[in-house]
């Protein structure tokens, strides 16, 4: 069986900044009219010089440290020279590993689940502008429309070694990286286009195929599965796999040969003369390490130690910062039962979130849920005010209405319980505690009324008697 090797190139926009990488324009270009978020520097006007953003360097160094990379003492920028209409200077200012100097991060490692992947390098670079030309306008057969609003925003590129062999591992790895990035606060991964991932795939000994244009992390797994299948079926029929670049077609869910000539371009890298060599230095690094936010792995250790959560529960929480934050907010409000709180979030609440929800937007979008709701719910269970089934039902109501659980309970206490599951559960408990009566009921039908009475007692008189009776009878029938 041919061994599959997959390597990744992740691009992460530093949306946590205010300004662009080399100029003072807003770094958030989304939703703005074309060419209204530009200045002479980022639109490539002659005579302008790049003004490096200090905080971008910090963020890039933080990302490098967080994924286990070595950060060098001296840092340089390079020019990658090629022509393209979305590139205002027809070169990109980026970083490069030469034999004299490295990029902002090298030789790292990321654990994900029980596996790990090596990081080859991390580099800080600028994003190009955007071209508008596919299928928007009949006229774009004759020309292209260029918008420079995005040009010059900061990108951190993370390149891994080809340490992956299965698409699902890639998905797990990307989840981990997303969580790390979110915990650092350098990028809002839920913003459209803020994180992108290209991949390269090869079968053992075969040529490498690069897959580009994958819109979201979720699609990476799909694209890889498709590409691996494609390559395997070619290899089985002894068809040669060419070294090439393929684009992911989102609509048709296939990879196809890149239309543009992306042959081996000679990028003629050389050091960017307008930016001096940047001395990072030990002081900078140690102060950075001191103010690094808590990372997912550290947070998990703390969850296990402080809250005594079970491993797999803690794991689910830290994989998504929003979830972990939600948990801690709830525990802050009601600290008594962190385990119970965690379980409610991880098992029940997550069940309400849509599976189809993409990586974009809040995890809880569409649900009217806040930490205070969970906190109160758990406290009500602890006080024996409700049982778990009722709690679950209440939770459902909360997510729809946003009302506090206690409020919902009040309303419920005045209303009839006609939920068969709840009544059945109550019946089960009674059958447990009134064993002799149950035995009698099998002989003497009038004892069923006694059982019914017990049900009414336990449900505060709210159970629907007709349904309760019918369920008691069914239950008795099953007893043989």
């Amino acid at each position, binding site marked *: 069986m041919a061994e599959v090797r997959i390597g990744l190139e992740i691009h992460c926009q530093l949306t946590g900044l205010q300004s662009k990488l080399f100029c003072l324009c807003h770094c958030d270009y989304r939703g703005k009219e074309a060419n209204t978020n530009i200045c002479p520097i980022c639109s490539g006007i*002659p005579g*302008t010089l790049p003004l490096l953003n200090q905080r971008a360097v910090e963020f890039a160094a933080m990302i490098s440290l967080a994924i286990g990379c070595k950060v060098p003492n001296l840092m340089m920028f390079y020019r990658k020279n090629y022509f393209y*209409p979305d590139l*205002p200077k027809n070169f990109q200012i980026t970083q490069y590993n030469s034999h004299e100097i490295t990029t902002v991060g090298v030789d790292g490692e990321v654990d994900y689940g029980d596996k790990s992947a090596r990081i080859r390098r991390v580099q800080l670079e600028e994003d190009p502008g955007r071209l508008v030309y596919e299928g928007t306008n009949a006229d774009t057969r004759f020309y292209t429309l260029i918008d420079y609003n995005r040009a010059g925003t900061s990108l951190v590129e993370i390149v891994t070694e080809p340490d992956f062999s299965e698409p699902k591992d890639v998905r797990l790895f990307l989840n981990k990286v997303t969580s790390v990035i979110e915990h650092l606060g350098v990028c809002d991964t839920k913003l459209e286009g803020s994180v992108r991932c290209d991949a390269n795939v090869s079968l053992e000994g075969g040529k490498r195929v690069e897959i580009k244009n994958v819109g979201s992390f979720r699609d990476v797994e799909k694209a890889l599965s498709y590409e691996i299948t494609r390559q395997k079926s070619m290899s089985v029929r002894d068809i040669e796999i060419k070294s090439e670049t393929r684009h992911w077609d989102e609509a048709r869910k296939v990879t196809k040969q890149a239309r543009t000539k992306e042959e081996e371009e000679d990028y003629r*890298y050389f050091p960017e003369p*307008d930016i*001096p060599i940047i001395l990072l230095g030990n002081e900078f690094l140690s102060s950075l390490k001191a103010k690094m936010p808590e990372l997912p792995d550290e947070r998990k250790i703390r969850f296990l130690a402080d809250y005594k959560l079970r491993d797999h529960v803690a794991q689910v929480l830290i994989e998504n910062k929003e979830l972990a934050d939600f948990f801690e907010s709830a525990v802050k409000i009601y600290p008594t039962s962190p385990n119970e709180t965690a379980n409610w979030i991880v098992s029940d609440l997550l069940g309400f979130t849509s599976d189809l929800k993409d990586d974009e937007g809040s995890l809880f979008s569409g649900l009217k849920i806040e930490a205070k709701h969970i906190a109160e719910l758990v406290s009500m269970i602890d006080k024996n005010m409700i049982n778990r089934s009722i709690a679950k039902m209440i939770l459902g109501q909360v997510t729809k209405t946003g009302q506090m659980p206690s409020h919902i309970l009040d309303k419920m206490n005045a209303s009839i319980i006609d939920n068969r599951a709840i009544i059945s559960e109550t019946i089960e408990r009674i059958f447990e505690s009134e064993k002799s009566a149950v035995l009698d009921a099998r002989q003497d039908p009038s004892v069923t009324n006694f059982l019914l009475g017990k049900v009414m007692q336990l449900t505060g008189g709210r159970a629907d008697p007709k349904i309760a009776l019918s369920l008691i009878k069914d239950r008795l029938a099953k007893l043989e």
Partner: protein
Amino acid sequence: MPNHLYQLTADHVVSGIKNRRFSAQEYISQILERIEKVDSNINAFTAVNPDDALERARSIDKRIQDGQGTGPLAGVAVGIKDNICTKGIKTTCASKMLDEFIPPYDATVVKKLKESDAIILGKLNLDEFAMGSTTEFSKYGPTCNPWNVDYVAGGSSGGSAASVAAQECTLSLGSDTGGSVRCPASFCSVVGLKPTYGYVSRSGLISYSNSLEQIGPLGKTVSDVMMIMNVIAGEDEYDLTTTEKKPASFAATPDTMSSNKISNYTLQTKKNIRVGLVEELIEGADPVVSKCIYSALDLFAELGCKCENASMKSVQYALASYYTIAMAEASSNLARYDNIRYGFEFSPEDYEWNAYFAKVRNNFGEEVKRRIIIGSYVLSAGYYGKYYLKAQTARRMIKQEIQSLFKKYDVLIAPTMPILPFRLGEKIDDPLKMYMIDIDTVVANLAGIPAISIPAGFENGLPIGLQIMANEMEEQTLLDTASAFESIVDIHRSPQI
């Protein structure tokens, strides 16, 4: 008081206007008349703004009349090389590729000049994108030498030097990548300074070779050059390669008409200046040039300076290193000219993008295209180590060697140009021959040190310039030495134009 106000040096213009001996309007009017009279023979200007200049002159006169303060260069007419961005005024780099480019911002030096109340007269001719040594590679045609209009004015800042020599403006700004301020200064017999790399902001200077070039001032005297340096030098937040935080405040030496005062001056400067003449920079020079430079050395000795021959072995690599690096950077800097955002009238509609780029970019001039091709070559995979890296290593060697020389000497001297100005068209068909004349000037760019050219003599009516170099950020020593030389060599003449 000279007959014509355009003959005045900047210091006298400023004091004359301030003390109301004449008005700024009078002065500017005379300057504009002068341009009208002579520029058709010289072709120094690519554009002149008479209305704007007169308006500013009027406003300065009014402020003085009202007793308000004015800046240190108030009223002085300055010309700006046309590769330096002036907001609202076309800036073309003498190229078709920027035919209709109107910068939306001012270069930092232009901003500073405006703040000092200097009056920007217009833009000055250059070799296309500053690539050349004669200003013959310009879409506007060549600039002619005011001393003999059949001869080249030097380049690439030919317009900047010729305009000052012909007294069409009092001061000018040029740019110097491998000698482009000093060469025309020498050929036109004016003073031209290339500051220490990083001393003057490059923000707004349209890049040719970023790690080598600096904007540099030209004027009739060293004192005038000091005045404008005080305005334009200093750290700029828009240019990361600028470093000097202290503002410049060069003081002119005392009025040096008597040799008495000169000896006092040298005694005053705590040590005798130690002067080294770099052998390797003079050995290939024209005999009449060498003779003039050796005489200069003698003059320094008479002043009381310790004079010696100095040797710099790494000079043999200087031209190869310079051109490799300059062309490499140029090939990248010029990539942005794709005619989409700025350029000339030629719609991109219905062209495939590669074809469009290639088609419009073939409108660069010949010399520019040659350098772009060579630049791409020396950076390409397989040749990067052999050429670019070696060139940068050579550059380090040159810098180290020059710094060890500055342990023994305060200044180094050499000819600015190894030859006299030559006839228009003489070297234009032999690129390599043209490059060779930069041998004396590229060393200062490679090492990042300041260097100045000052008039040293004439031969057959054609100027010879002396080049003086000092260590990084030692402009005061450099300018003092130049000033002392200027007063003893005593060349006071103007071209008959």
